[in-house]
């Protein structure tokens, strides 16, 4: 007799297995079904640095975590409630993180001597008392899958590949999610190989049926998570890389400029190159350059020619672009530079997340070389921020640095589709053939924005020469004059600082606009901070969350706003970089709370830090 269905507020499930076990697919299909059930959610694909590490090793473990709920979900969850471990290595790597008392689903069939050895287990943990304190479900998933797909006559290896669908079926049952979207997807994906599609569907159904019919249902609850109360609209799930790419495309359409995207592959920035390369329909030129320098140079060349150049990389590649960025600043051409941050320094931890390139973004150039810096906070937010980067670049004739990170790039969340027609366009203005004999001056400035006059090749009468040498304020020609250099330096700063007047005032994301403690964050720490502040406030603490999108210049009300708090805590996944900028600009005693482990913050850790700061 089945137990009744329990209703949950939210749940965290982590799928873990060998790189070859298809955990990323399992996770994203579970995500999809969950999204279609109307839950809010956040995901964290956590794959190994190796392309295909040897089977069964701990460093070859690939995992996918999802947090979903009936209320707003901001993080992937500190600790899974359920861990699915498809082999001993997956158990080894992930067990320590499972919530005490949490559920553990193990594929017993993979706990062979050889696999145990590879994972570094002397004894079989599935048998001893290692797993005491967890709710353990041992199943021979491998065997049951083979059984389920027998009729399709697949080879051994191919048949075993369906294991993940069996598991997915079970989990869909457990959380009362629909199978149909997965079935649809399988049929589409394997349209040309129906036997594979059918085998996978059979495995999925078998896993589901196992839950429903087996004894399992006698001592395991089935759960239900109610749909979240979300704004009306059409939704889909979106990853940061997708939303960012679409935002860039939108930026091109809104400015009326062709996008010329120059890039060089690098983890975790490559998905943007891939996404945009698949969007040629929109008149986007993508160029895989010979290196990052050529990538930014080609983008800048395109901007010079009248397009909107965009380039994208991660830390080491952005470092290489530094010199050319200086040229973009000096020639005052529009350019969007996307940095998908990863663990550093140097090659660092390419597949792990970090936000340690803020110094580089704000300060990391030779000469006095100011440029706007904006940051994304979540996958969906990437869309808006990308558009904003394009807007600032075009309106102010300047390169703009857009900071995102490896976590955001790969994570997915439900996203309400924007109404593209409702977004205010920002048509670029390019110089026209001058009337009469008027000389064309490329450095004539718009009085309000201080943006220079964008003359583009192909237009008669605006022929001109520019370059990286200092230019005369009055004519745009080369000038070595001392007073002019001062004036141009001042103007370059004034132009960027002036953007503060053209961006929204900083809002308080949660809490009052003054009080004891302001927790100030930027980037992908948004979720954990939001959640930690929520809990702190629930405990009655006077704490507010302020999350910055604009890092240079800061919104003009920020100084005042922060001044209204007794204390400022700045949690960052770096050694304290935003803290430096805040202290410099506002002379406020901003306290850093840092974590440089390649992983997102845990809510619990943030909460402790908030408590400690308030108590101090």
């Amino acid at each position, binding site marked *: 007799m089945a137990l009744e269905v329990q209703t949950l507020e939210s749940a965290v499930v982590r799928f873990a297995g060998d790189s070859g076990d298809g955990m990323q697919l399992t996770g994203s299909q579970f995500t999809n079904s969950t999204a*279609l059930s109307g839950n809010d959610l956040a995901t964290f694909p956590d794959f190994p640095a190796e392309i295909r590490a040897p089977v069964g090793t701990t460093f070859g473990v690939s995992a996918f975590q999802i947090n979903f709920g009936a209320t707003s979900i901001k993080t992937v969850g500190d600790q899974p409630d359920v861990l699915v471990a498809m082999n001993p290595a997956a158990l080894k790597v992930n067990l320590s993180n499972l919530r005490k008392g949490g559920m553990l689903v193990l594929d017993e069939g993979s706990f062979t001597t050889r696999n145990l050895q590879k994972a570094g287990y002397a004894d079989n943990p599935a048998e001893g008392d290692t797993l005491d304190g967890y709710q353990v479900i041992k199943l021979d998933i491998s065997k049951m899958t083979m059984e389920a797909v027998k009729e399709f006559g697949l080879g051994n290896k191919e048949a075993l590949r369906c294991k993940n669908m069996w598991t997915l079926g079970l989990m869909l049952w457990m959380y009362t999610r629909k199978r149909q979207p997965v079935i649809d997807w399988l049929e589409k994906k394997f349209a040309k190989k129906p036997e594979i599609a059918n085998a996978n569907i059979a495995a999925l159904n078998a896993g589901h049926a196992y839950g429903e019919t087996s004894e399992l249902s006698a001592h395991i609850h089935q759960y239900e998570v109610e749909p979240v109360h979300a704004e009306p609209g059409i939704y889909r799930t979106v990853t940061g890389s997708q939303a960012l790419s679409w935002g860039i495309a939108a930026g091109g359409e809104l400015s009326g400029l062709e996008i010329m995207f120059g890039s060089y592959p690098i983890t975790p920035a490559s998905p943007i190159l891939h996404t945009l390369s698949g969007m040629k329909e*929109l008149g986007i030129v993508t160029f895989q350059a*010979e*290196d990052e320098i*050529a990538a930014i*140079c080609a983008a800048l*060349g395109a901007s010079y020619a009248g397009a909107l150049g965009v380039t994208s990389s991660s830390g080491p590649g952005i470092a290489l672009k530094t010199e050319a960025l200086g040229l973009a600043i000096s020639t005052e051409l529009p350019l969007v530079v996307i940095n998908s941050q990863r663990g550093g320094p140097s090659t660092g931890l390419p597949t792990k997340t970090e936000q340690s390139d803020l110094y580089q973004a704000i300060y990391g150039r030779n000469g006095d070389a100011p440029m706007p810096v904006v940051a994304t906070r979540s996958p969906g937010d990437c869309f808006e921020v990308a558009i904003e980067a394009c807007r600032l670049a075009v309106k102010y004739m300047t390169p703009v640095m857009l900071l995102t990170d490896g976590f955001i790039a790969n994570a997915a969340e439900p996203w309400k589709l924007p109404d593209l027609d409702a977004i205010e366009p920002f048509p670029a203005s390019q110089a026209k053939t001058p009337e009469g004999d008027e000389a064309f001056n490329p450095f004539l400035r718009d009085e309000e924005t201080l943006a220079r006059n964008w003359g583009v090749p192909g237009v008669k009468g605006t*022929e*001109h020469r520019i370059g990286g040498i200092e230019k005369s304020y009055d004519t745009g020609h080369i000038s070595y004059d001392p007073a002019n250099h001062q004036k141009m330096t001042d103007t370059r700063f004034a132009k960027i600082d002036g953007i503060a007047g053209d961006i929204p005032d900083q809002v308080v994301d949660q809490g009052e606009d003054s009080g004891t403690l302001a927790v100030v964050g930027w980037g992908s720490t948004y979720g954990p901070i939001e959640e930690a502040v929520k809990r702190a406030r629930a405990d009655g603490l006077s704490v507010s969350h302020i999350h910055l999108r604009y890092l240079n210049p800061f919104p003009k009300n920020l100084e005042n706003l922060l001044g209204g708090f007794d204390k400022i805590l700045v949690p960052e996944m770096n050694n304290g970089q935003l803290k430096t900028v805040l202290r410099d600009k506002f002379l406020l005693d901003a306290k850093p709370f840092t974590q440089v482990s390649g992983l997102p913050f845990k809510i619990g850790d943030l909460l402790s830090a908030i408590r400690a700061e308030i108590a101090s």
Partner: protein
Amino acid sequence: MNEMTTPQEKLTIKDFTSDQEVRWCPGCGDYAILKCMQRTLPELGATRENTVFVSGIGCSSRFPYYMDTYGFHTIHGRAPAIATGVKLAKPELDVWVITGDGDGLSIGGNHLVHAIRRDVDLNILLFNNQIYGLTKGQYSPTSVVGTKTPSTPQGSVDPTLNPIAFALGSGARFVARTVDTAQKHMPDVFKRAHAFKGASFVEILQNCIVYNDAIWEEITNKKTAPDHQLLLEHGTPMIFGAERNKGIIFNTKSFALEVVTIGENSVTEGDILVHDETSLQMARMLGDLGEKPGEPAPMGVIYASEADHSYVDAVRGQMDSEKGKRTLKDIIRGGQTWVVE
């Protein structure tokens, strides 16, 4: 692209001369190249508005300032990459890249390799003075071994890079050479380079009167030139010399080109190799010619073999063929969606 199709009045050298004072050393070979370009562009039917000069950094790279066209004086070594972006964004532009032996072959070598490999439709002019002029005379990758400079007071020891061999090794399909003083020859080379669809690579031997004077003396001096230059013409035997009695043959034993004298060792005019600018093998051998004493330096179009595809067209073609098939809205709605009411 408003003005671009308007029929042009006939332009002259003045129309291509900017109002900026030219700032090379008096006597620098760059002046002659500049004048020649200003003179040749009208003959090509070029317009100011559709012509872009992109350069790196170096004395030679100041060239764009003096042309009354669009000009981009960029950063050291990166002109080919920037020019690639210009051309990809606006294929209708005539894009000239101006670079030096340091700018193009030292720091910028890789961008040159890839612009050439991709066969981007650029006209690349490399001013080879075998020295770093702008930074006051250090040796460059093309400096001959033993060159004494501030950074090599005992003479350089690095083997020299041959620009022609380098370009061909990168997959160049148009390679030519001329020299700053050759005011008749240079325009023809410019015209050929301009007409070529794809990356045209032109080495211009250029005299730096201050730091490396007279290195091309044998080639440019009227007296010695005939014996030291091999003026190439497609389909014509490769004969040279003051008395037009020297020629080039291919020696099948040594498997290399060789200088012979017509009339000696029973060599006749008929034995002389005929220049075939479409032959990659011949081009490679001609690229080496002049390295050994007694050998003349080939001048003119060494290699020209247009590809049947165009890189820029192909890139934009992929875009054009897809254009309009989906809109951004379609893409965004492309995944599985659900409705919250």
